């Protein structure tokens, strides 16, 4: 069983620089063609400061953490047994190319179902830009398969 004493644990915050090329690559990998994700001028004509990151991009910044998915180490998870159960984003602003985003995650809850066959870890993550604006808050549920 996962260590429920880790509920409330906050991971060390880190900053991630959002490069223009990274956004373009991400947008290409999902088949996106809207120029607001590729072209500065098109983004500005659409009313944005510059190229914006697609809606689910913030979670990609989680992987910029010094350790790949720090929750894996903290809870001693076998990465082959993790499934993504759910994901929520609340948006308060835009994530732009050139931003430096501070990523802060904590373990909101750990619980189990089916007599422990499945365990659930709820992570909450704040994304704050270089101007101290909270631009996005995410919540994700990881499902851990036991046996």
């Amino acid at each position, binding site marked *: 069983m996962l260590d429920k004493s880790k509920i409330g644990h906050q991971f060390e915050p880190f900053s991630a620089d959002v490069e223009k090329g990274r956004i373009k690559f991400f947008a290409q990998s999902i*088949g996106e063609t809207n120029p607001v994700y590729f072209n500065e001028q098109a983004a500005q004509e659409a009313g944005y400061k510059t190229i914006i990151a697609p809606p*689910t991009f913030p*979670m*990609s*910044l989680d992987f910029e953490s010094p350790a790949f998915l720090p929750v894996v180490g903290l809870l001693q998870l*076998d990465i082959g047994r993790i499934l*993504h159960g*759910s994901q929520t*984003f609340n948006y308060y602003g835009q994530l732009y190319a050139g931003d430096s985003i501070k990523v802060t995650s904590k373990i909101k809850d750990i619980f189990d179902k089916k007599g422990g066959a499945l365990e659930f870890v709820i992570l909450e993550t704040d994304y704050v830009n270089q101007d101290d604006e909270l631009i996005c808050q995410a919540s994700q549920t990881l499902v851990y398969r036991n046996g």
Partner: protein
Amino acid sequence: MTDISIGTQLPALTLPAINRTTLALFAGASGDHNPIHIDIDFAKRAGMDDVFAHGMLSMAYLGRLLTNWQPQSKLRKFETKFTAITQLRDVITCSGEVIDVFEYNNEPCAKVAIQAAKDDGTKTLVGEAVVAI
């Protein structure tokens, strides 16, 4: 002015069949290098028949559905549950329908029921989005 109301359908988005290149590119672009999505040897050791798609790939497709419909600056909330695994060769279609028009944080918004589904009708992601109108 808006013509968005309960029952408004979003233009559906059908994606090319998922292949190994799709997953390799998304792994690189998203930063999610979990080998369960890219390394068949690892996937088999984990009890799977093969690698399978990142849930976040399909969520990104649903994001395209939403931002094709309305500018991203209007997106307020976006949530999904991952209800089935997306396998190689699956053809995913994203669709959505406005199910409510309501005040969200003192702003007129539409609540949109969204889903990603396979050809055989299996829903892989179901969720909701809140979009300012």
